[in-house]
């Protein structure tokens, strides 16, 4: 770190930190509000919203909302479902999309630029426009599982996973990162007799930590926040994820305290995942010395 040499520099740094603290506070306040509100009864929660009390754990504080949330909905099941679906999708997506990007960047085959363009062009297609056709497709697909061959994927975990194993954004992220890597690394490995899969797995993957972390975070958030698709394909409560579960709390009279308790609970896995990957991200950059 450069030494602070003049009052002018100190002032600049102080202002910079002040600005950063302000931005941090703005981003943290909604989370503080959510957690603090989860301990308050509904009437107090609503009344406090008009004052700074909304951010303070004062008044009638208890865990009642948490107990009530568990009575109202199978919270544990919803969190388990979301973590299962999200984890499997993220892992599968990182593998498939990075391999696809590897092929687009390092392999030579006819029409690859056109295929890549088509894949990236799908970024502008809103999911809502293809949701119904997708529903009809998955409803008529076969699946081989414990019960042999079954038709139709509704009310399963795989209907929430398979359609999202590959997506244009993740492929694009990997392509952009791989294009900036020195080509000599791949050429040297090939000269040493490495197969393409060995080049991918032993040369490229170890130095692609930053993009894997970034893609994992983005994919995790997208999958964990899925609402429309699971709503359409999970008619059985057994397979519903957290975001569909959130709707359990909006009845004729919304239980706002329980909503906040539920949101606090389902936010924990997201925070844990982010913190975990944030460390991996920094470690990855520090160990490779390669900028993405």
């Amino acid at each position, binding site marked *: 770190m450069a030494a602070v040499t003049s009052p002018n520099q100190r002032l600049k740094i102080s202002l910079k930190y002040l600005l950063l603290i302000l931005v941090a506070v703005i981003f943290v306040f909604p989370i503080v509000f959510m957690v603090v509100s989860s301990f308050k009864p*509904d*009437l107090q929660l*609503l*009344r406090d*919203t*008009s004052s700074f009390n909304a951010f303070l754990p004062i008044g009638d504080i208890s865990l009642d909302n948490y107990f009530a949330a568990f*009575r*109202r*909905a199978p919270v544990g099941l919803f969190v388990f479902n979301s973590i299962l679906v999200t984890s499997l999708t993220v892992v599968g997506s990182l593998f498939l999309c990075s391999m696809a990007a590897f092929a687009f960047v390092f392999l030579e085959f006819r029409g690859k630029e056109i295929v890549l363009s088509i894949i990236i062009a799908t970024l502008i297609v809103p999911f809502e426009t293809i949701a*119904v056709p997708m*529903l*009809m497709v998955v*409803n008529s697909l076969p699946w081989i599982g414990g019960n042999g061959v079954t038709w*139709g994927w*509704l009310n399963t975990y795989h209907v929430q996973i398979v359609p999202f194993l590959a997506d244009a954004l993740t492929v694009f992220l990997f392509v952009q990162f791989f294009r900036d890597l020195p080509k000599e690394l791949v050429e040297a490995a090939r000269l040493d007799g490495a197969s393409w899969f060995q080049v991918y797995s032993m040369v490229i993957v170890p130095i692609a930590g930053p993009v894997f972390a970034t893609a994992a975070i983005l994919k995790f958030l997208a999958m964990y926040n899925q609402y*429309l698709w699971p*709503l*359409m*394909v999970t*008619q*059985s*409560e057994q397979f519903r994820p957290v975001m*569909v*579960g959130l*709707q*359990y*709390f*909006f*009845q*004729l*009279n919304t239980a706002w305290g329980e909503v906040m308790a539920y949101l606090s609970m389902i936010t924990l896995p997201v925070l844990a995942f982010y913190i975990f990957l944030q460390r991996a991200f920094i470690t990855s950059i520090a160990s490779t010395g390669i900028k993405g």
Partner: protein
Amino acid sequence: MKSLKLLAATLAFSTALGGAAFAQTNLTMWYHGAGSTVERDLINGIITDFNGSQTDWKVSLQEFPQAAYNDSVVAAAVAGNLPDIIDVDGPVMPNWAWAGYMQPLQLSEGALDGFLPGAIGKYNDQVYSVGLWDAAVAMYARKSTLEKFNIRIPTLEQPWTGEEFNGILETLKSSGEFDYPLNLGMADQGEWYPYAFAPFLWSFGGDLVDRTSYETAEGALNGDAAVAFGEWWQSLFTNNYVPGTSQDMASHETGFIDGDYALQWNGNWVAVKTLEALGDDVLFLPAPDFGNGPKIGGASWQFGVSATSAHPDGASAFIEFALQPKYLAAFSDGIGLIPATAEAAALTKNYAPGGALESFYALSEKQAMLRPVTPGYVFEALEFRKALSDIANGADVVDALDAATDAINADIARNNNYAAAQ
């Protein structure tokens, strides 16, 4: 020998019992109340009773959260896997019947005798759905406030006139004691708008669509009566009688109880909570009469049979079983809504004669009017909601109503007047 005979008889009896149980045909049912433990217990109680009362049918329940329910049903209809029994919000039923998601009920003669009109879902002269309850909206007021400002307490027979109501709002505003004289619930921007505010339009003499044909909104939504309604509606905001469309939910939910609003236009589902807070000072008053009688919206959630059900007789049998007064009363006691018959109301704690919410039953019986019974209602409701928001925010009344009328007419034309089932 005697033991052998006894054993044989026991085996034969148990086999017969097992066979009978085994012979029950499964019926699937979807319900919108996931997250409401009270509703879950009630509906499961009815199902248990029904399954044990006969040997032909066995109903199993799948619950959905209310906010996600309609989308789930539509998705299931697309995928072709609707259950046998569904529940449907009353004004949406014609759309689902027209779209081929539902079929008429097979109820016994007289099964719906004595039911509130709002609890019966009729489309094309056939009953497609029936509700165990109805909902009603009332003008919430504090008796002490009305007395303090010498405001007449209206009755069903003599509701406030439009002019009288406007004067009351001005009196309350001039007092300076309240943030606003009236809370309309502008923060709740879903079906609340057409459900709660269309009755004002009806009372002025307008409507969302011409009900003689259901083929145009011309004249109904942009005629003189509708324009008069629109101007009155806008005056509520320009005179600061009510908070605008940016009203926050917290203010809507606690403002009346906290004394920020003198009056509140709200449904009976918050009546118990309000009574608990204000005691017998709270009054549930009829809607004002703007010239064509006081009106409130009718029809809440109802049970129906899906078009793809292979066992509509069994599904209808379950629904008819659920219409017993004891179940209507149990639902009312559980979730606070109005039981669909007077017989059931008498069994409840709130709606029985002398009960704290008795007035809501009378409101539903005397003032309730169904939202337009047409498949196009779903679209009309969206346009009406948009027009009301625009007018509240200062849009030209005639332009806003004309735009809504044109959009509704275009939708009706686009769907071939909603004439034929799809």
